């Protein structure tokens, strides 16, 4: 069974440009999460989807970040316009949900904003 996949693995963009990250969860997992680690700090939660609905987006830093999960399958996270402080590693995770909701992480996308 395939794990969580993310694309691209690396992205280098100029400040002010737009970048879109993609996450494909484990098949059958209704719960999808985005996290990020910036400046060597701890990994922090961004938002949580249940199927196509945003369950919790309390971790989204500002309105330059837009996440979608059309059809309840893969998800995209768009950063527009990107700022220097957005550099870091963006992780996606998925889980089956319920009381015992183990989360499985993708390999991450390393974003560098110059």
């Amino acid at each position: 069974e395939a794990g969580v996949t993310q694309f691209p693995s690396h992205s280098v963009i100029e400040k002010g440009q737009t970048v879109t990250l993609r996450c494909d969860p484990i098949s059958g997992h209704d719960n999808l999460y985005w996290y990020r680690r910036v400046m060597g700090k701890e990994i922090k939660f961004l938002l949580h989807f249940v199927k196509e609905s945003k369950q919790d987006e309390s971790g989204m830093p500002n309105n330059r970040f837009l996440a979608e999960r059309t059809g309840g399958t893969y998800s995209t996270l768009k950063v527009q316009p990107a700022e220097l402080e957005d550099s870091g590693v963006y992780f996606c995770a998925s889980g089956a949900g319920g009381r015992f909701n183990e989360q499985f992480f993708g390999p991450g996308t390393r974003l560098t904003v110059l």
Partner: protein
Amino acid sequence: GIQVEQSPPDLILQEGANSTLRCNFSDSVNNLQWFHQNPWGQLINLFYIPSGTKQNGRLSATTVATERYSLLYISSSQTTDSGVYFCAVERWANNLFFGTGTRLTVIP
């Protein structure tokens, strides 16, 4: 949010040695996971352990939820064990709160 503290922050071991990593958390939790971030940056699931003890090969973990801590034991360490170990806890909202990690270096 909940505070998650891991200790030690850094650990250097000789190959073959044993170690214990600790994770303290500030409030009651529903779930707890241990991860290993390998040199390529991937987060590998080690244990899903909201309470009790589990073992997987040379690794084992114990969570004492009532006392708000978890321990990860690594026995007979190997160079491939090197990397950062993260503890993460979940409360009511399904999202995980991560500690700052323990960076383990195993020397041949």
